[in-house]
C-alpha cells in the first residue's frame, strides 16, 4: 500500500509540475507579447540609429529595463546582417550604453551560461574594444565559451587574432569548422598567417590552411604569391592536403598549377583525383581536355563525374560529341544531358 501511495504521490507531483510549467509558460508568453509590441515600437528608432538620414546620426535613445533589452536585440539582429557604417553606429551605441563593458565583465563570471552569453553577444555588438577579453576567453575551461569567443572574434573581423584562432584549432580547444567560419569572416587579412601554417607538421592543419587559403586567397594582398606556393602541396604525404591544395588552386584559377594537376589525375586516391579534375575545370585550357576525357570515361565514380563536369565547363562541344561514343561511360552522358538544361 505504501508503494501505491508513493506512486500516486509521484503522479500527483507530475501533474502539479505540468500545471506549474503551464503557468510559467503563459507568463512567458505574455512577456514575449510585450516584447513583440516593444519591438514594433522601437524598430523605427533602431532603423534611425543604424541608417540615419544625414551623416550626423540620430542621438541614441535613452532606454531602460525591458525596452533597453529589446532595443539591444534589434541592434544585434541588424549587426548580423549589416556591414559598413551601420556597424560602427551599432558599436558606438553599445559602447555608450555601457553594454560592451558589462558583457566584458561577464566573461569572467562564475556561471558558464553567463560567460557563453557574454562571449556570444560581444560578437554582435561590433565593438573592437572586446577583442582582448575575447582572446582571453579562448582559454576558458568551457568548450562552449571558447567556441562562442572564436565566433565573436570572427564577427569582429579581428585580424590580429588569427594566430590565436588557428592555435585553438590546432590544440583542439575549438572545433576546426568553428574556427574555419571565424577565419572566413575575418577574410583576406587572415591569409598571411595561414601561409605560415602550410608547413605545419600536422596534416589536418595543413589541409585546413590550404582550404581556407583557397576560399580567401583571391581577394588577399598575397594573391600573386599563392600560385607559386600551392603546387608543392600537391605532392604532400597526406591525401587530404593534396585534395585541398587542388581545390584551392582551382578556386584561385591558378594556371601555374595546371601541369601538376594533370599529374594529380593519376593519384592513387580517388578523392584526390576528383579534386584535381574539379580544379582543372576551373582553371581551364585546351591542354587539359585529353587527360580529363580519359578520367571521365574510365575512372571511378567521383573522379569521373567531376572530370565530366569539368570538361563541360571547358569544352561543351567536346562533351556533346564524346558522350555519343560507345565507350563514353555514364558520366559524359550525364554531363552532356545537363548541358542542355
Amino acid at each position, binding site marked *: 500500500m505504501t508503494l501505491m501511495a508513493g506512486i500516486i504521490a509521484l503522479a500527483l507531483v507530475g501533474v502539479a509540475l505540468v500545471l506549474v510549467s*503551464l503557468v510559467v509558460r503563459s507568463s512567458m508568453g505574455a512577456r514575449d507579447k510585450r516584447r513583440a509590441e516593444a519591438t514594433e515600437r522601437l524598430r523605427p528608432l533602431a532603423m534611425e540609429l543604424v541608417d540615419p538620414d544625414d551623416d550626423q546620426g540620430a542621438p541614441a535613445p535613452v532606454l531602460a529595463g525591458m525596452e533597453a533589452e529589446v532595443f539591444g536585440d534589434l541592434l544585434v539582429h541588424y549587426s548580423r546582417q549589416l556591414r559598413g557604417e551601420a556597424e560602427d553606429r551599432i558599436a558606438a551605441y553599445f559602447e555608450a550604453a555601457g553594454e560592451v563593458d558589462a558583457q566584458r565583465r561577464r566573461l569572467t563570471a562564475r556561471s558558464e551560461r553567463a560567460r557563453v552569453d557574454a562571449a556570444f553577444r560581444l560578437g554582435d555588438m561590433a565593438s573592437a574594444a572586446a577583442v582582448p577579453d575575447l582572446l582571453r576567453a579562448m582559454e576558458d575551461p568551457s568548450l562552449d565559451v571558447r567556441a562562442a569567443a572564436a565566433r565573436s572574434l570572427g564577427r569582429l573581423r579581428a585580424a590580429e587574432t588569427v594566430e590565436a584562432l588557428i592555435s585553438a584549432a590546432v590544440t583542439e580547444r575549438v572545433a576546426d569548422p568553428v574556427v574555419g567560419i571565424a577565419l572566413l569572416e575575418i577574410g583576406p587579412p587572415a591569409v598571411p598567417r595561414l601561409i605560415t601554417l602550410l608547413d605545419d607538421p600536422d596534416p589536418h592543419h595543413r589541409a585546413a590552411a590550404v582550404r581556407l587559403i583557397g576560399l580567401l586567397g583571391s581577394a588577399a594582398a598575397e594573391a600573386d604569391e599563392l600560385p607559386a606556393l600551392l603546387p608543392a602541396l600537391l605532392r604532400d604525404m597526406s591525401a587530404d592536403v593534396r585534395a585541398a591544395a587542388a581545390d584551392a588552386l582551382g578556386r584561385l584559377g591558378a594556371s601555374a598549377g595546371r601541369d601538376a594537376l594533370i599529374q594529380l589525375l593519376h593519384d592513387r586516391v580517388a578523392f584526390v583525383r576528383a579534386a584535381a579534375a574539379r580544379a582543372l575545370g576551373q582553371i581551364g585550357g585546351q591542354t587539359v581536355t585529353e587527360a580529363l576525357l580519359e578520367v571521365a570515361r574510365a575512372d571511378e*565514380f567521383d573522379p569521373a563525374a567531376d572530370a565530366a563536369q569539368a570538361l563541360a565547363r571547358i569544352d561543351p562541344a567536346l562533351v556533346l560529341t564524346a558522350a555519343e561514343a560507345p565507350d563514353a561511360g555514364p558520366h559524359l552522358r550525364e554531363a552532356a544531358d545537363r548541358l542542355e538544361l
Partner: protein
Amino acid sequence: METILVGFSAMSFVYFVLLNGFYLALTALAWVDLRRKVWRRRYLGLDDVFASPLTPGISVIVPAYNEEVVIVESVRSLLALRYPRHEVVVVNDGSADATVQTLIEAFDMVPVRQAMREGIPTAEIRATYASRPHPGLLVLDKANAGRSDALNAGFNAARHPYVCMIDADSLLEPDALLRIAKPLLDQPGSVVAAGGTIRAANGCLIDHGQVLDVRLPRSRLATIQSLEYIRAFLIARVGWGRVHALGLISGAFGIFDRSLLQTVGGLWTDTVGEDLELTLRLHRYLRDRGEPYEVVFVDDAVCWTEVPEDLTTLGRQRRRWQRGLWEALLRHRAMIGNPRYGVIGLLTMIYFAVFEFLSPIFALLGLLVTLGLWLTGGVGSGYLASFVAVSLLLGIVLSTAALVLEEVSFGTYKRRRDVLRLLAYTLLENVGYRQLHHVWRLLGFVDIARGKTEWGAQKRQGLARPVGGAD
C-alpha cells in the same frame, strides 16, 4: 498450476519494476541533457553555419509512392529549407498515379542520363529527370520495389557526402537540416548518423509545407500518439543519446554518412524494420572495426508527420513494427548482451529484446494473469494494488514527466487547453491504449510465426516509429 501463474505474475511484476525503473533513469538522463542543451540553443550560431562554405552538403532523399497530391508542395518546401548546400532527390517507387508527371510539369524537368553509383543493388531505374530552374532537384523514376529500395536508389544517385532520409509527407521545419547537421561541425569526422525529433502533425495548421500553428488533433487516437511521440523522443531518444546508446535513427528523419551507407550496403530491403536494422548494422560494423564514431540525437531538429487516426491502420503499423523489430533482432542477435558491442550490446540490444519485443508477454499477459488470480483469490488485493501501481500508475508518472520536460524545454503546444488535454490523456495512454498496443504487438508475433511478407503499397506506411521505450 496456480503456483506457475503466481510465479509468472511475480515475474511480470519484476519486469514492470525494471522497465519503469529504467525508464525513470532515462527520464533523469533526458532531464540532465536537456537542461544542458536548452539554453545553449540560443548560441548555436546557425546563421554562421548557414553562411559557411565549409558546411557539408546533404542530399535529401524522398521516396514517393502515389504522392501526386502532396509531392509538389513537399519538394518546394524541401528546396526552400535553410541550408547552404543541399539537393532533393525524389525517388518515385513505381507509383500508380501521376507523381512523376506532376513533378515534371511543376519543376520544368527534362530527362537526363544520370550517372548512378553501383554500390547498392536496386530495382530498375526507368528514367531520371533534372529540373531546369532548380539545379538541386533530381527525380528518379523506378520500378516499384518498396520504400527501402527507393531510398537505396536515392543513395546511389546522391551527390553530397551526407544523405537525409525522409518521407514524402513529412514536413521538416525550415531550420531542421541546419540543426541536425550542427553535430557534424561540432564533432568533425566522428558523427556518422544523426536523428531528429518527430512529432505528430495531425491537427496542426499547415500551409505550403510548413507548420504555421501547432495544435492538438481532434482525433483521440492521434492525440494519444502525440503524447507517445513526445515520450519516445524527448525522454527515450534524448536519454539513450546521452549515454551514447542510441539504437535507432528513425527513417522518417535522419542523416547518414553516405559513403558508409554505401559500404555497408544501404537499407536491407527484406525487412519492415529497415531503419532499426540499418542503425544496428552501422553500430555493428563500426564497433567490429574498432573505429571511433558517434550516432547522435538532435532534439531541436524537428520533423512533423501524419500519424494514423484509425485503429485498423494504427494496428497494422504497430504489428509491422513488431515484425520489423524481430527481423532486426534476429539478424543482429549476436550483438545481444555481447560486451564486444559495448553499451549497444549490453544495454540497447537487451532493452530492445526484453523490454520491447517481449513486452506483450509480460506486460499484457502478466496484467491479465494477475487480474485473473485476484478474481479467483490466488493473490490478495494488496498485491494487485502494488501491481497496478508499478504497471499502470508508474506509466502515468512517466508520461507526466515527459510532458513536464516538453513544457520546460520546448513548449511546443501554445494553447493551454492543448496541454491540459495532453495531461488528461496520460491516463488514457496508460490505461487502455498501452494494453491495446500490446495486443497489436502480440498479433505481431502471429505475423512473424506465419512468416508474413507484404510488399509494395503496404510497406511504406507509418515510418515515424517512436520505438525506444514507449512500453
